[in-house]
């Protein structure tokens, strides 16, 4: 089975939303409110991407809660991102054995 035309279609509908902002923003002046809104987006997007998604990494939401919780603690003490990731993975592995 060749899925090449489905892949091409998926590529197209993914590329257009990616390219649209660059095209639009070069053709308009951004008002102050929109500028401030756009500067908030990284924080809002991170919030929405983390929660509740992190609870869904396993059938048991406690696993995600433990992994996410360990990440929060390590990040709070300004650990390097790589250490936060390693700590969270280790916590999830242990939690899966215990819970």
């Amino acid at each position: 089975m060749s899925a090449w035309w489905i892949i091409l279609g998926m590529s197209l509908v993914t590329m257009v939303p990616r390219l649209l902002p660059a095209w639009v923003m070069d053709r308009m002046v951004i008002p102050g409110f929109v500028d401030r809104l756009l500067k908030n987006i990284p924080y809002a997007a991170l919030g929405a991407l983390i929660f509740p998604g992190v609870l869904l990494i396993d059938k048991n939401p406690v696993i995600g809660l433990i992994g996410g919780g360990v990440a929060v603690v390590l990040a709070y003490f300004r650990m390097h991102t790589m250490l936060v990731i390693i700590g969270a993975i280790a916590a999830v592995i242990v939690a899966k054995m215990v819970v």
Partner: protein
Amino acid sequence: MRASEGRETRPHAAQFWTGIQVALPIAVGYIPIAIAFGVMARQVELSLWDTALMSILVYAGASQFMAVNMLATGAGGLEIILATLVINLRHVVLGLSLINLLKGVRPAWKGALSLGVTDESFAVATLSGRNHPVFLAGIMLSAYLAWVGGTLLGGMLYQFIPPDIGNSMSIALYAMFISLLIPEMRRERKVVMIAGTAMLINALGTELLGLASGWSIILATLAASALFAGKGEKA
């Protein structure tokens, strides 16, 4: 991005190298997920070529997993393409925010960097505090190569790799998001409000309103950003 930082003047090679280093956590998160994708795609009898092509041309994890699942259940091509569009529409919102930081950058650069926008590359890029296009290209390119490389690995070795390889690693990208967000929250109370509001709206959107997670994330991101975009509010 902290607006006070101007365009940097370091040589391009150094900018690019720094970008690659900053993207290391993305690569670490992507590779096992990409391997899992490669394995799954081959198991639903996609050719190695098609599997790689999807990562090369689509480069959007959630929609690729969904497409493979839908292919396995015999869904139609148009249905798959439409679902892909819906999942990846959120890149419009992320792209607008990224492009807004690239004032004075040439349109060709903006276009090229936009093609590298994913949840992860966007988050790392916008919170890096830098906006040199070559630095950003280092982030985008290493994330992309990690995704494509992992896919190839999984696609070639699928007979030897258990498909649940990604399972214990699936926390990795969440941990990266958390490690990006928490220091910003400590720096500024307003970030706590914005991110907290987005989490709340997203939870309500998926659990209460039963929205598909793609739509719910778009709604939560836009609403929480708009709520705190009043005149007196500084980011």
